[in-house]
């Protein structure tokens, strides 16, 4: 366990603290997650006339989960116009014990000429270029866990989701920035399907 942790730390240090080239970015965001959940319906119709049974059908109910959530995102493998990212979101405040947990990986395509901080150091000379205002779109996929309430019960489900997102970062100083992002995704779970909308705002930090 300790060896694995040491390896993970070493991997992050080597990959994150490169100091030159395009810089990775982490962001801490707070925002709203809204997931509309619809339970899968099933119906089995009796076609064998020799057997006398009634049709079986399971009627699904629908629900919506809204939560104020925290999202941590890490952009790695950053290039001038492209970055890959991974993000985690957990609910902070939600109604009646409901909530959405999620973990995704994806990419962001920057729409302006330079999408990440770039630095170059040689013989004591440094060149740093920071995009003042950058905006992007991208796609992501991941997995999640939802807890929702129906009229009569509290239920939960795990799901996969695929979605698109768009956002912007306004840089303030060498490292910090203000980030806003909106995302929409389609979720497909074991017992449910749904549409998830995310709206997050927070701070970004160049590593």
């Amino acid at each position, binding site marked *: 366990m300790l060896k694995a942790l040491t390896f993970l730390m070493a991997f992050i240090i080597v990959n994150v603290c490169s100091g030159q080239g395009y810089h990775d970015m982490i962001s801490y965001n707070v925002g709203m997650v809204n997931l509309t959940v619809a339970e899968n319906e099933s119906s089995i119709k009796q076609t064998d006339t020799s057997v006398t049974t009634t049709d079986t059908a399971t009627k699904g109910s629908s629900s919506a989960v809204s939560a104020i959530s925290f999202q941590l995102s890490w952009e790695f493998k950053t290039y001038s116009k492209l970055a890959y990212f991974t993000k985690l979101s957990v609910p902070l405040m939600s109604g009646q014990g409901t909530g959405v947990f999620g973990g995704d990986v994806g990419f962001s395509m920057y729409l302006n000429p330079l999408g990440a901080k770039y630095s170059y150091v040689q013989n004591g000379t440094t060149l740093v270029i920071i995009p*003042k205002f950058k905006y992007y779109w991208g796609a992501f996929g991941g997995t999640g866990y939802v807890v929702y309430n129906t009229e009569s019960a509290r239920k939960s489900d795990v799901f996969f989701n695929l979605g698109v997102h768009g956002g912007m970062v306004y840089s303030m100083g060498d490292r910090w920035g203000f980030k806003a992002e909106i995302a929409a995704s389609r979720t497909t779970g074991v017992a449910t399907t749904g549409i998830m909308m995310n709206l997050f705002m927070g701070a970004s930090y160049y590593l």
Partner: protein
Amino acid sequence: MRNSLIVLLFSYSAMAFGGQLMIESNPSDCEIFTIDFKTGKKSNLGKTPYKAELEFLKSSIGDNGIVQVEIHKPGFDAFNIAIPVIGNNDIKINANLEVEQDIKLTQDFDLLVSDLFDVLRMIRMKDYQNGMKKLDLLENKFPHYSIVYEMKGTVSYLQMNFKQALNYYRKAFGINPKNREAYRMKVYLEKKFKLGSES
């Protein structure tokens, strides 16, 4: 009133979203020039430390995508860099200017001579160990100067380490065949140990 408000809002957003160019240098107070790639026209921007809106740079030198910046101060080699002025980016340059080659050479000679005098003083005080340490440092910095190896040979000889002394004198003579003192000592030690010049 409404128009002034719109103009104010637009100028504020241009300032807020517009990038800046910041140039610092070591040493400071260097002249900054921009050179047009197409025409070769050189324009003086000012002196370091310098800070200006990127929009101002675009309007004064044109929005050609890339601009060459030259930072210069007498006594130092000119520093040149091509920077992109596309989009609204903050660009920060901290240029470390190298001392001109002639001055650098003079400074190096000065260091070598003063350090060799230090070594001589240590030899007179029979402080061979520190003398050798200093010569090791000089060997790293000036690996092609035969005088350093000759002095190492002398220190080794005075420490009665004759075989090592011979190696140093051979190396000194190998680097500079005009080093007569190294040659004289090499021949003397080879005779003393009855060694051929090739062995």
